[in-house]
């Protein structure tokens, strides 16, 4: 009679297990599979008959089998594991993301006789996440902030218009990315967009870079050289950091925009230019005009359509999306399998001010990828400045305001980099001039050494 009851209970258990959508399998203490439900068959693609009696690692084939088996953890500690995200490799050689939970199996005397593992296929969730990401992305730009969504809405019309565009935003906000998207959506997309950073070159060189020169124009000009305007003929020319060009060059640029023609250095005739200008600046050009540092007439020529990209700290809702994006990007390029950041890491990122904007966030993820050997980016994989102890600054009282914290954060970073502004700006992912402005604004007094003099001191005489 008791045997019959046990048989009926076993049948019920089997029916119940087969009716649920989560995969479930049980193992004995030798890690041999003792039961395998219908959903487990569907998710793994392996029929039950082939699994019974087999080692669970040969059936389940998870990334954690060898070095971090959660069922083993549960068997050792007695503690269940709930909803850990891992992946398994199915028979097609595809990674299937699953969420697993574990528990112990005990007999009627409470003795451990094995373990149970339940797992849920996250492929659909992953697909939905990707679809959601598509909703929040425009070409390669990712954001769900309302300010950015407004820009996404008008971007196609801006691209079609062929008018000059001015993109303003802090360093690291992705101005060049916007320029590329505008170009890609425009009718000039079949020709390559030409880009030039105006602050990267001295004035004389910048002029020859922009307009080119004729052989004999100056001593070393042995033959003609095409300038960026000529290279961008029929296409778009992206002029980054346009606020940094000299007054003399501003006049020449104004002429191109007004007359649609220019003269290469040493040329006697003008050359027609069919080029769309997309200019960008990390400075507020209107303020530069007011300060007399930028020509008003050129400003109005450039400022036909203005796009203002908000800094990351004003759209922190984008941080989780961008984190996912960069994890996906680096997983691809570095062939890694990192699934996510830990909740603590995300909290720290959400609290961070991101002076270097998206570029800084990307640098942080890249840094974490170097150190992370598991599946989840943890706090100790972050750069020191972001780790909690890095933020408990010696002089920061509980009442320190944001600016004081920012100043101390910068000071710590500068000190770490031997007071090298260049290295510090690079680490923050911002331009050196932005760092100088920050230092000035925050009233940070620097010692009379810098990274260069430190380095020089170290050089043998």
């Amino acid at each position: 009679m008791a045997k019959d009851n046990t048989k009926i209970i076993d049948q019920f258990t089997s029916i119940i297990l087969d009716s649920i959508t989560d995969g479930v399998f049980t193992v004995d203490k030798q890690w041999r599979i003792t039961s395998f439900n219908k959903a487990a068959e569907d998710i793994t693609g392996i029929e039950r008959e082939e699994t019974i009696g087999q080692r669970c690692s040969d059936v389940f084939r998870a990334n954690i089998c060898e070095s971090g088996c959660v069922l083993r953890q549960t068997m050792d500690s007695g503690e269940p594991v709930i909803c850990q995200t891992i992946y398994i490799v199915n028979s097609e050689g595809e990674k299937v993301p699953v969420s697993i939970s574990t528990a112990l199996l005990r007999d009627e005397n409470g003795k451990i006789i094995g373990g149970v593992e339940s797992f849920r296929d996250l492929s659909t969730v992953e697909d939905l996440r990707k679809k959601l990401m598509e909703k929040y992305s425009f070409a390669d730009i990712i954001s769900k902030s309302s300010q950015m969504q407004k820009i996404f809405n008008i971007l196609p019309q801006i691209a079609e218009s062929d008018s000059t565009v001015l993109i303003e935003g802090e360093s690291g906000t992705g101005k060049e990315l916007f320029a590329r998207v505008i170009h890609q959506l425009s009718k000039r997309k079949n020709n390559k967009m030409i880009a030039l950073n105006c602050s990267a070159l001295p004035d004389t060189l910048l002029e020859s870079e922009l307009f080119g020169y004729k052989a004999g124009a100056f001593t070393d000009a042995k033959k003609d050289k095409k300038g960026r305007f000529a290279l961008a003929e029929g296409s778009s020319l992206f002029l980054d950091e346009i606020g940094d060009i000299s007054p003399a060059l501003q006049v020449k640029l104004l002429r191109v925009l007004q007359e649609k023609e220019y003269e290469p250095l040493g040329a006697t005739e003008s050359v027609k230019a069919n080029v769309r200008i997309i200019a960008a600046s990390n400075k507020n050009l209107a303020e530069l005009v007011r300060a007399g540092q930028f020509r008003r007439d050129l400003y109005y020529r450039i400022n036909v359509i203005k796009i203002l990209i908000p800094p990351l700290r004003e759209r922190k809702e984008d941080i989780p999306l961008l984190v996912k994006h960069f994890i996906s990007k680096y997983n691809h390029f570095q062939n890694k399998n990192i699934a996510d950041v830990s909740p603590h890491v995300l909290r720290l990122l959400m609290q961070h001010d991101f002076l270097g904007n998206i570029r800084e966030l990307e640098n942080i993820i890249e840094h974490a990828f170097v150190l992370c050997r598991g599946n989840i980016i943890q706090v100790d994989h972050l750069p020191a400045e972001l780790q909690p102890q890095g933020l408990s600054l010696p002089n920061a009282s509980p009442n320190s305001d944001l600016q004081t914290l920012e100043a101390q954060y910068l000071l710590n970073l500068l000190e770490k980099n031997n007071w090298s502004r260049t290295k510090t700006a690079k680490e923050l992912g911002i331009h050196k001039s932005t760092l100088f402005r920050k230092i000035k604004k925050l009233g940070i007094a620097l010692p009379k050494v810098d990274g260069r003099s430190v380095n020089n001191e170290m050089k043998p005489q």
Partner: protein
Amino acid sequence: MKRIIAITSWQNRISPVFDTAQKLLIFELNEKSEISRREEMIDFNVPFQKIHALVRSGAKTLICGAITEQIESQIEEAGIKVLSFICGDISSVMQAYLAGKDIKTEFAMPGCKNQRCHRRRGRFMYLNY
């Protein structure tokens, strides 16, 4: 004729997943027997490093457990034959291999009998979103 084969190893068995395997056993064989064997740790998180270690080992054949299609293609592109989705004790697998048996059938992982695994071949594509 000497030949070198590599097997991913875990607890004296073939590692369940190549992508996360930690140890490689490299066998030098002649026609019918083993000449020597050595171990190499491949506990890298970056699959490229595993592939690099494999190429460096001089192995022309890899025997492994489950493997993602992208990595299998990369190994094959490096000129290494891959016998994947194999499980079992390394000594038994090696014995069968040296005897010229079809280990893909005899030691196939569950769900992979009759060459059922990796039927769908194709290039890996990264979806950028």
